[in-house]
């Protein structure tokens, strides 16, 4: 699978691996990974385009617009387990030190 595994992408994969079966929201992912929306969403879009992530609109409370949520596909889960394990810790350090590109 051709996907650029930047430290930020690894962070996102790592965040999805936490309780992988659960749906996750964009802002929650941003808080967990520390990534800004301008960095996080392009990664989510790429993952979804590669069929590694499934997306769904959550039917919320009546009168309120639905919320978009994300979860690994089986392929995505396999890909993340193969690539994110071990490398996310190192990338966390890189991001914290500002070594990684945006």
């Amino acid at each position, binding site marked *: 699978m051709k996907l650029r595994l930047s430290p930020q992408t690894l962070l996102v994969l790592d965040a999805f691996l936490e309780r992988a079966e659960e749906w996750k929201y964009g802002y929650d992912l*941003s808080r967990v990974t520390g990534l800004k929306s301008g960095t996080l969403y*392009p990664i989510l879009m790429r993952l979804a385009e590669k069929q590694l992530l499934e*997306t769904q609109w959550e039917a919320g409370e009546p009168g309120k617009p639905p919320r978009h949520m994300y979860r690994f596909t089986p392929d995505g889960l396999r890909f993340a387990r193969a690539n994110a394990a071990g490398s996310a810790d190192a990338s966390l350090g890189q991001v914290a030190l500002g070594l990684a590109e945006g």
Partner: protein
Amino acid sequence: MGAPRTLAAKLLRAVVRLAPAESRDWAAAMLRELDFIEGDLAALLWALGSAAAILRHAASVWRAWLQRKSEKETRMNKTGKKVLGIGLGMLSALALVGCAFASLRILGILFPGLEHSSWAYWLAVMAIPEAIFVAATVMLWRKKGPIAAGILATGLVMALHVAVHFTLHW
């Protein structure tokens, strides 16, 4: 709702409205998340980052569309060039046949009786042009395939015409 948050919401609503269809869902998702962000300044920063992300995504969608369009145009140009080449080959071959007829007429004027001689007729109108067609087809086949195909097609039509003529009259 503070001014930065209002501005953030307005910006993201505009992004949702203006985004191409492929990016609109994502823009709407970013707009919805705005309701869960604490702090007005954080909301504005979220909106600015989201707008940039959508702009990049839209740009990549447009780039892919332009690339597909350009590939399609290139394919169409190639087909057009082939058709033009075949037409040019056929026109060249017909011009040669016309020249052969004209030469025969001139020779007929210069040497009365020659025009009505059957061997001169077949040599000038059939054998020499056909030999030239075959030679031209062989020479042009690799570098100017469509032109060669046009010449060959004309030669074949002429040969067929002669075969029909022989069948009917002899």
